[in-house]
């Protein structure tokens, strides 16, 4: 019970801090001081105090989209277990499908809202978003297939806690491959650098940011908040494979989870600092590479 409460609090409070860590890492690489670590919270508070402006062409879809997105990512966050603990929502057979398509629903509403504004730029962003999603989803499912094959279960909790208990020689190689694939998905789904630049200011090259140009004030704050939660949820999915850790004491485990998440944010920030953004036409190559990595891991297991 107490662990579920901690899970919920972490899920709701911690994610913007990861954005702060990413920005701080990027500032460090750039030789700047950078914004304070808690700046994302202040940004969110500032946005929440602002007024709302709606274009006259928009309908209820435009207003509902940020809220639906927030609701779906929080629900997905409740489905996924953190570290060695079980998730607040009891894990059931096949919840990985629900988990994946909660993100699909969020994406549907974001793109629908973008199309709802009738702006050419936003339509372009929506087209790109769904194109790349088409490629990252198979990678995610191939990765899940590997985990299912290793753990013999269709429930997220067993799947994510199970794989490293399989014999080291059979599990190591596929899991490393899936880990790499999931990291690429993490970057692509959260619009981080090799795929999309969250700080860009040129509509022609933006993907995610261009879809939310017309949102203002609190609704924009909700979108930013939902995006940070998405980073947290997919990050915890990745960490289950990359750094599974279980100690004897729950408090230590929670601290380790916090540490791992911060470490992941530093890693993402480092990737953003040392890599240039890929050309738009090369992004599918990267994502197909992720699909192939995960598929390859699956083939190795079929042997």
């Amino acid at each position, binding site marked *: 019970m107490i662990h579920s409460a901690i899970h919920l609090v972490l899920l709701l409070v911690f994610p913007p801090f990861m954005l702060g860590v990413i920005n701080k890492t990027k500032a460090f690489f750039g030789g700047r001081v950078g914004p304070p670590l808690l700046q994302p919270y202040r940004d969110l508070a500032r946005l929440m105090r602002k007024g709302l402006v709606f274009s006259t062409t928009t309908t209820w879809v435009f207003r509902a989209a940020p809220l639906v997105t927030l609701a779906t990512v929080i629900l997905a966050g409740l489905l996924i277990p953190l570290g060695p603990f079980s998730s607040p929502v009891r894990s059931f057979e096949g919840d990985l499908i629900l988990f994946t398509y909660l993100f699909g629903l969020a994406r549907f509403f974001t793109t629908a809202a973008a199309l709802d504004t009738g702006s050419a730029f936003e339509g372009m962003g929506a087209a790109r978003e769904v194109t790349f999603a088409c490629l990252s989803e198979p990678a995610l499912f191939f990765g899940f297939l590997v985990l299912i094959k290793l753990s013999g279960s269709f429930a997220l909790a067993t799947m994510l806690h199970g794989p490293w208990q399989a014999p080291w*020689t059979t599990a*190591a*190689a596929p899991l490393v*491959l899936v880990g790499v694939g999931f990291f690429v998905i993490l970057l692509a789904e959260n619009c981080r650098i090799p795929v999309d630049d969250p700080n860009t200011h040129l509509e022609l090259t933006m993907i995610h940011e261009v879809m939310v140009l017309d949102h203002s004030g609190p609704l924009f704050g909700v979108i930013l908040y939902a995006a940070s939660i998405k980073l947290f949820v997919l990050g915890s999915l990745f960490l289950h494979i990359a750094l599974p850790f279980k100690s004897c004491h729950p408090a230590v485990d929670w601290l380790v989870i916090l540490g791992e998440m911060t470490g992941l944010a530093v890693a993402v920030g480092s990737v953003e600092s040392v890599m240039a953004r890929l050309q738009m036409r090369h992004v*599918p*190559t990267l994502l*197909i*590479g992720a699909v*192939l990595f995960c*598929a*390859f891991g699956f*083939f*190795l297991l*079929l*042997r």
Partner: protein
Amino acid sequence: MQVLLDPALILVLLLNLFALGNSRITSVIRIVGFQGAVLGLMPLIVHGHLGAMPFLVAAATVCLKGIVIPWMLLRAMREAQIRREMEPLIGFVPSMVLATLGTGLALAFARQLPLAPAHLGPLLVPASLSTVFSGFILLTTRFKAISQVVGYLMLENGIFIFGMLLVEAMPLLVELGVLLDLFVGVFVITIIVNQIQAAFSSMDTRKLSSIKEQT
């Protein structure tokens, strides 16, 4: 040491994918060179004991495949001043997909082969088949002469993996002879590449079909 065999072979298979998906010829040469070096260490892994003969073969292979041949190819490239494979017959992404499918098929096929029980466990046979297949894709679908040489090297790497099955039986002389052949082959090819470059001011092998016998 046997524990390291499968991870090393998986690394080799991944290098295949990287080589096929890369449009910069220098990177492809480096990748295949690295692959050769990894393979060069394989006799030590397979043998398990560090005798003089496996050590000699490993040292020679690493030197030749990992250092000398890539260096020769990079030098030929620098003189020819080309950077990228522009338009392969099969694109970079489709060739990666093909290679992955090939690997899957190789894994399935290797199970059907009547192998010695000792060779069923490790990935040696599927890795070999898949590397040969990837090398074949590189060799046949790229038009720059240098890329084709790299494809040939990768194909040879695949055959080298297959040779690991016979590592107990194969005499030192044969291994070194194969390496010498490879070295001479690449040596001659780099000279030919320079000649093609001098004659056509391009390294596109399709231009060779315009050569006619003088009557």
